[in-house]
């Protein structure tokens, strides 16, 4: 019973991490049809931003404040990844609209460049980020079941990001413009919406969320130049499985992969678990090629 509860929690925790890394992708891929293979590297940028924030606190702040660096690093990661995303959109991505496969290849090249850049700047080995002490330990709900605060924190962070995105997309003026452009670009342009600005903003926000994901990942895993490569394929699977264009699909996709992965891994082993999950995804897509939540269109292609 204890193990069951713990595994259930682990499943949700893994899902929340997957969701966090896939959220940004759901925006860039789902709304803009840009396959951003450099998404993983934007996550990496977020992680390094956290590392830098930590170092700044070490160097310039009283040591009693150190614990609060993490609070600052979340917006900092968002901002830095946001700026990188903006730069990327303005210089490259805007030449790639309507060419999704080309965008995949070009951004893979960008990913390669960013990885090498990280290697040149921070060195090839991993860097260490010390988690704030208020996230150490966990909540004991049964004698033998401890829910780590960090995992709980990530679940909360994802929820916060989802809510923020919901309000942004569906309740704000900017969000309405964004939806208008994504649904009918020409019409939106005719109505005076600057599609260029909206595109750039949308892509940058997607990138910024990747940055937040990177920040959260410093709590759980390694921080190095190849950090992004560990997560990128999983993130794509989440988005594809969930279906394009609706956030609820992405949530379902993440839950599906996270929970099943944990289950399979518990019953078999990590390698086989992974293989089984991917097989399930391939099989599922045969059945529903456009994922859990599909949007129908009437156009020929």
């Amino acid at each position: 019973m204890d193990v069951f509860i713990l595994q259930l929690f682990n499943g949700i925790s893994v899902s929340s991490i997957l969701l966090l890394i896939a959220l940004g992708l759901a925006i860039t891929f789902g709304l803009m049809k840009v396959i951003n293979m450099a998404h993983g590297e934007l996550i990496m940028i977020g992680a390094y931003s956290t590392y830098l924030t930590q170092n700044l606190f070490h160097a310039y702040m009283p040591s009693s404040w150190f614990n609060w660096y993490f609070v600052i690093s979340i917006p900092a990661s968002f901002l830095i990844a946001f700026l990188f995303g903006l730069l990327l959109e303005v210089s490259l991505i805007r030449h790639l609209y309507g060419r999704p496969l080309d965008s995949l290849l070009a951004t893979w090249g960008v990913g390669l460049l960013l990885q090498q850049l990280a290697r040149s700047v921070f060195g090839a080995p991993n860097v260490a980020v010390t988690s704030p002490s208020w996230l150490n330990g966990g909540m004991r709900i049964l004698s033998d079941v401890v829910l780590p605060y960090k995992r709980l924190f990530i679940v909360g962070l994802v929820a916060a990001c989802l809510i923020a995105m919901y309000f942004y997309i569906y309740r704000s003026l900017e969000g309405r413009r964004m939806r208008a452009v994504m649904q009918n670009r020409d019409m939106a342009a005719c109505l005076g919406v600057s599609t260029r600005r909206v595109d750039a903003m949308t892509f940058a926000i997607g990138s910024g969320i990747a940055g937040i994901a990177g920040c959260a990942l410093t709590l759980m895993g390694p921080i190095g130049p190849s950090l992004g490569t560990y997560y990128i394929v999983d993130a794509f699977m989440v988005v594809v499985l969930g279906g394009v264009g609706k956030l609820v699909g992405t949530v379902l996709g993440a839950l599906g992969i996270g929970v099943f992965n944990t289950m399979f891994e518990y019953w078999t082993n990590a390698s086989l678990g992974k293989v089984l999950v991917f097989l399930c995804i391939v099989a599922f897509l045969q059945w529903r090629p456009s994922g859990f939540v599909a949007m129908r269109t009437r156009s020929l292609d």
Partner: protein
Amino acid sequence: MAGYAAAAVALFAAPMFLSDFRLNLLAKFLAFAIVALGLDLIWGYTGILSLGHGIFFGIGAYAMAMYLKLEASGGRLPDFMGWSGLKELPLFWQPFSSFGFAVAMGIVMPALLALFLGFFTFRNRIRGVYFTILTQALVIITTTLLVGQQAFTGGTNGVTGFSKILGASLASPDTKRMLYFVTVLVLIAVFVACRYIVGSRFGKVLRAIRDGENRVRFIGYNPAMYQMVIFTLSAAFAGIAGMLFVLHVGIISPSMMGIVPSIEMVLWVAIGGRGTLIGAAMGAVLLNWAKSEFSTSYPEGWTYFLGAMFVIVVVFLPNGLTGLLGKIKLGKKRRVTKNEPTIEYPAM
């Protein structure tokens, strides 16, 4: 025609000018060119981007490697099975002691896998980006399985430590030269086959599918059949290339089949010029040559160069270097017509 003949002559004459080591490298690059041709058929001509060709390449390579390993072990258990705790040769390894069987498997197995995958995905109209991501999932499945089943596959180490093929020592320069000629012949055969396919009505249907898959359907063609056939063929070419690769390099491991090598294969085609066969083949040779020349002296610079090259070519030169050369030449002649062989790649 004259140009191709000259190229063929140059390839056959190459052993006279190159050291054994360089010849070996060139042979490897030519094997890569075969993969590039297959990839070009499905990507450049049919508009399907597969990021899973590393698997087909790898399966071909493993088939050949299994034969070579058994040949080298001379009746004993291959070394890695020993240190993985196996006591006797697994059943599925046994027929690979036959060269003919191994070669047949090296072609048939990738083709069958592609057929199986293509049968379902293309019939279910999974295409464009979804197909591409699906192939990536397949790469993960295959490499994880290969690595996990160390006793049967050699795990991350892969299969290596070969000595002879059909009784001839792999180390002797004569065998190497022979294998080089075999590679050149296979490349030429594959190239001619691709030319025929591309020029045939079948090839026109492929391009039509690239331009508008649904439109093709309403003319009465079943695109799924065409996609399946060309995907299978392309996988078979990759398998052949994999077999040749093992003969030249002497090792195959899952690291040659992963996501990165699979994307690199696409990169050869992109940089050489998709939609032209010669561009794809040349892209494979040139890029790998440059990699082996420059990556040594400037390992960091090389990665920057590779990344930048990729970005620039894909974004600004969709027709690759061949397209660029074409533009320069046409520009000199000041001859710009509607006919200019630039290809638009429609949204997929």
